[in-house]
């Protein structure tokens, strides 16, 4: 059975608007469950600062696992990153783990922006840290915090990754 409109419909006198543009999705960078955030993926000072915050968070995360791969992935040419990542991997393979050692940025200055490069001087606090074995015995420890580690990071912009990557890193 055919039925007609039961109520009068006024004609719309405006043209339909285009659907909102979808933003180009960024290629995944960093661990799948802890990716580099979008705000750290802009080639400007704000992006570099956001990346530094993410990097410190990543170190804290990977130390707690411990696992170094994510660090070397984001710092492919970084010597100090490779050393730290190697420590985490060595600890994991020996069945050891880190307790403490969290890093926090207490102060950072405005990035020095260069051609595809950003350098940031910052000061970090490191909490007491120990390396313990699977039985919980302390193998090595730094029982005192380091309240003001004068540090620096140099970042390179990767156009293919649309992200900053760590070129070099100095902690303390």
């Amino acid at each position, binding site marked *: 059975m055919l039925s007609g409109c039961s109520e009068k419909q006024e004609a719309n006198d405006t043209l339909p608007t285009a659907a909102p543009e979808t933003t180009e999705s960024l290629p995944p960078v960093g661990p799948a469950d802890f990716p580099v955030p979008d705000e750290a993926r802009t080639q400007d000072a704000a992006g570099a600062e956001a990346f530094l915050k993410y990097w410190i968070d990543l*170190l804290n995360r990977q*130390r707690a696992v411990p696992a170094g791969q994510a660090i070397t992935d984001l710092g492919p*040419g970084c*010597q*100090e990153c*490779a*050393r*730290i990542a*190697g*420590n985490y991997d*060595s*600890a994991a393979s020996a069945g050891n783990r880190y307790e403490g*050692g969290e*890093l926090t940025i*207490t*102060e*950072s*200055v*405005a990035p*020095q922006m260069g051609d595809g490069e950003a*350098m*940031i*001087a*910052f*000061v970090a606090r*490191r909490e007491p*840290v120990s*390396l313990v074995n699977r039985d919980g015995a302390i193998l*090595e420890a*730094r029982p005192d915090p*380091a309240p*003001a*580690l*004068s*540090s*620096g*990071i*140099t970042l390179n912009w990767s156009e293919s990754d649309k992200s900053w990557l760590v070129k*070099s*890193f*100095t*902690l*303390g």
Partner: protein
Amino acid sequence: MIRKVARTLTVLLLTVVAMLADLSPALACTFDDCGNTNVDNGTIDVGFEGRGVADLVAGSPEGIADYIWRLRHLCVLSDEREGACSPMDFRPCPEEPGRVIRYLVVQQRRIVREDGTVAPNADGTPVDVPSVLGPGDPVGDWVDVRQGCIDITPLNPPPSGDEVFSYFQRLPLPTLTTQHQPPGNGLAGLPVIFYTDSPTTQTFTVDIRGFSVVIQATAEQFTWHTGDPTGQIVTTHPGQPYPNQTIEHDYRSGTYTAHLTVTWGATFTVNGSAPADVPGTTTTDGPPVTFDVLQARSVLTNPYD
């Protein structure tokens, strides 16, 4: 030519291994912040830092005042990146008697001046300093300045494995004498026994640029040149006389000249340090010994004579 190249490659490989061995303790910091403990042990293969480095590479009083400096070996950079040194890390540098010239990377890091500022960028723009830092504190990241062959003799670096090896090659190592049995002439069909009773270890103390280097040389391989067409017998032990002989050779009748080539390896210590392997071996040839091997003939004799 091929043997020379092979030997060069062998020495290179051994050098790499020795350098990695030197690196192990230097890279032993297991925490995130290590300061400069990975470079300040003074090991030539790891790197150098300190005022002496600044005097050597800073180039100006401002460079000394505004930065701390360090020198790092390319091997350290590769070792941290790749987990191993690469042959490309060993760039040749000119050799000069009494000088130590190495291919190194020069790095600098800003330090806070007395007025709280730091050296500006190359274009003159100022560089911000975190407020908690004071005069003399380092600021920011280490930066590569240049790399190349640098004469580091003024830093008085301890002798490297390569340097010790060059001395080792010139040491008056013993030439081991070939002993054979039976003494005098041998008999065809009766194996000739070889051994040496010469010393197979020797210790030398040499002065290398003021460092007391003790080299403990050990005979690692014995090549017995038999003097006949069969050529040589290679052993890792010096043999023993009858009846505990371990090295024998059958000869046809004739006159033969044999000698012993010994391959020497060594370890070394510097000013009483832990021993390290000398990266390479050298050989000595012992004096030749000539003997006849006679053909025994059966002769009927009268037992009542």
